[in-house]
């Protein structure tokens, strides 16, 4: 028997999640009026596995006619759905929640194949949270009069919902669940690169017996999205995506009757004080920026370290980065998966070049990267300041810009000095400091001694250019009701 060599690096053996039990069709059509129908465009585009470059399915591209059809179906369905007894509405939504739970593993595998995120995250976060979101809002359907006492309200009508590629199923749940719980009907468009779990959700919706036309799922790119935004018979737009597109949407529906909620970009400040529990904080900082390859609108992409602990924090961050496992999203050991698309990879690389040109000092985890697929190593930038592009603009990748500070007022000023205001984090063991910071940081969500936590009961959304309105919790209902 050989002795165990403690000085040797131990590698995890692969622990690959099986793909055997998942069902994927070769081609996916549009889900309109309760069934899958062929697009009038007759066009399909490929959904590609970003870790392998393999085409995993063909997806329909919905055109104007298709959107017309979907909106018409949603409009017709609205008449009866909005009148249906609320407790019966609830039961359909509860049923959808349960059916997602039953098929959770299948959804997790497809989410990781289609979007590149580690199976650990899709299995433990995306899919259960999506199911829980339906479960949470199902319960609200027949209790709305308790949510907003002394008001009279009614459902808005048809909601056009456009969601991003970073949390495909979860974002679909965030949009659909409160909308239908309040009695609205939905036309939802998933992101071009990650349509599959929304289409699998359409299968569940079909099987659940939800009345036809209540939820319609149409696939396509930006053009399809703009057909939704500009459709005259849509009463509400809910969009999650970039600030640039959010502003365009707001502009294009100006003067119409459409209501609007926006969840947009961010440049979250994560602040670590010298009195923080440093090891826990380092773990939190890693999670804040590298969770989901940094494809997170609320990512803690600006780190502020109090000067006295700068060296130790950076050293520990580098240490921790060295043990991150980058690779096959379907491997249960993987910490960091594939970058969602070639376009996003190009954007990240563009920002890296800008960071270097502007004098930033880069540190990247060394790792061997597969030739196929889209990969980017976890990256730190040191020696940057408030005026650097990579400090100001959202990169949406695993890139952390590190700055230092001396005083509490200085760091509040720096953290708030951005057009964004989605999220922030603070790490300290001193209670009064936590409350001072959570009060002063101008953001919709503040995590203290934690980061990147989500829950159906917890309202989420930004201030300033990070968006308008909240999703989640009691407050998230407001976006789907019309108050008289």
């Amino acid at each position, binding site marked *: 028997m050989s002795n165990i060599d403690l000085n040797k690096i131990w590698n995890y053996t692969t622990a690959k999640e099986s793909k055997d039990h998942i069902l994927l069709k070769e081609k996916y059509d549009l889900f309109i009026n309760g069934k899958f129908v062929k697009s009038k465009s007759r066009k399909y585009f490929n959904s590609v596995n970003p870790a392998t470059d393999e085409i995993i399915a063909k997806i329909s591209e919905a055109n104007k006619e298709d959107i017309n059809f979907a909106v018409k179906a949603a409009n017709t369905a609205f008449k009866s759905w909005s009148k249906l007894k609320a407790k019966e509405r609830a039961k359909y939504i509860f049923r959808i929640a349960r059916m997602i739970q039953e098929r959770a593993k299948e959804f997790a595998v497809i989410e990781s194949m289609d979007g590149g995120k580690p199976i650990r995250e899709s299995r433990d976060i995306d899919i259960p949270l999506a199911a*829980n979101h339906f479960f949470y809002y199902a319960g609200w359907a027949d209790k709305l009069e308790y949510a907003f006492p*002394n*008001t009279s309200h009614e459902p808005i009508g048809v909601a056009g919902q456009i969601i991003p590629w970073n949390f495909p199923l979860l974002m679909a749940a965030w949009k659909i669940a409160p909308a239908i719980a309040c009695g609205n009907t939905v036309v939802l468009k998933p992101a071009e690169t990650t349509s599959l779990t929304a289409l699998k959700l359409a299968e569940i919706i079909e099987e659940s017996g939800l009345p036809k036309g209540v939820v319609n799922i149409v696939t396509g790119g930006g053009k399809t999205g703009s057909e939704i935004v500009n459709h005259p018979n849509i009463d509400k737009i809910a969009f999650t995506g970039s*600030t640039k597109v*959010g*502003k*365009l949407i*707001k*502009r294009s*529906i*100006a*003067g119409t009757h459409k209501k609007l909620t*926006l969840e*947009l970009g961010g440049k979250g400040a994560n602040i670590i004080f010298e009195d923080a529990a440093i090891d826990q904080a380092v773990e939190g900082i890693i999670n804040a920026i590298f969770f989901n390859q940094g494809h997170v609108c609320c990512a803690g992409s600006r780190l502020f370290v109090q000067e006295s602990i700068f060296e130790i924090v950076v050293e520990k961050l580098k240490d921790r980065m060295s043990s991150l496992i980058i690779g096959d999203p379907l491997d249960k050991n993987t910490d960091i998966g594939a970058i969602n698309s070639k376009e996003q990879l190009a954007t990240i690389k563009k920002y890296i070049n800008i960071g270097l040109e502007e004098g930033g000092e880069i540190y990247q985890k060394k790792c061997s990267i597969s030739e196929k697929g889209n990969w980017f190593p976890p990256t730190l930038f040191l020696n940057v300041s408030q005026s650097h592009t990579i400090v100001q603009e959202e990169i949406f990748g695993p890139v952390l810009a590190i700055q230092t500070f001396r005083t509490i007022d200085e760091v509040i000023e720096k953290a708030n000095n951005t*057009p964004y205001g989605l999220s922030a984090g603070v790490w300290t063991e001193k209670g009064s400091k*936590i409350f001072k910071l*959570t*009060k002063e940081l101008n*953001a*919709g*969500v*503040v*995590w*203290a*001694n*934690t980061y990147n*936590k989500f*829950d159906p*009961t*917890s*309202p*989420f*959304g930004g*201030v*300033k*250019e990070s*968006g*308008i309105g*909240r999703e989640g*919790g*009691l*407050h998230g209902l407001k976006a789907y009701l019309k*108050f008289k």
Partner: protein
Amino acid sequence: MARINVLKTYKNFIGGKFPRTESGRYFQIKNGNEELLANMCLSSRKDFRNAVVVARKVQKSWQNATALNRGQVLYRVAEMLESRKSQFIEELMMTGLSKSHAKNEVELSIDRLIYYAGWSDKFQQVFSSVNPVASNHFNFSLLQSVGVVSVISPNDYSLLGMISVIAPIIVGGNTCVILSSEKNPMASISFAEVLNTSDVPSGVVNILTGKRKELLSHFASHKDVNAIIYCGDNNQEIKEIEHLSSENLKRVKIYKHKNWDHNSSQSPFFIETCQELKTIWHPNKV
């Protein structure tokens, strides 16, 4: 010979001072008999921008004042208005209101201030929540002021309408810049005198007189304004505001109704309109 009355010069109210418009322009307010009542400042974009600067400067300290303190400040405004009730009734009558209408408007204005003064330390309790997340965290959501608000004040109910809009804005810790009723701006500037003699910190409320047509676009597009409230039903103006406010994703609230004398024109939802919800997480497992 009868005594010659002393006429008041109506000027803007910016940062606790009464400057004339930097543009040097004016417009005239006349009564039903076409007699001149006042030359009002025809304010410019520059006046507006100056007002935003002071409103921004004082916003944080006003937001950080205690809720109790903000309530007492609003109450003080009501006290000051009560003591000058007859002056306001007279002024509203000069511009064509009957005595009973004028009296009713002034009294309702005072009551509305008291109403919102009382909400200062209560609305937070109504709208905030503790959220039972399914993990080991304590999680709560509370309201915080949106920041600087620009206001296109109602044309009708020049006094009551304006007070109904600004009281809920400032009780929530925001500061504001107001374009007063274009039709009847005199009472708004007299109200500025009330604000100035109560304990409202300079810059919390700033009032300009002028033309919607000229100033609307600036009120909607200014990048350091967080929200805009528009009172009126001109669809072209509403569209312009919604369009221009996209630049910095300003929050937009449109009040189309005109019944400012009605009870439905006061509620804590008018306060909530100019608030942002903030959610805070902290672990609760050691």
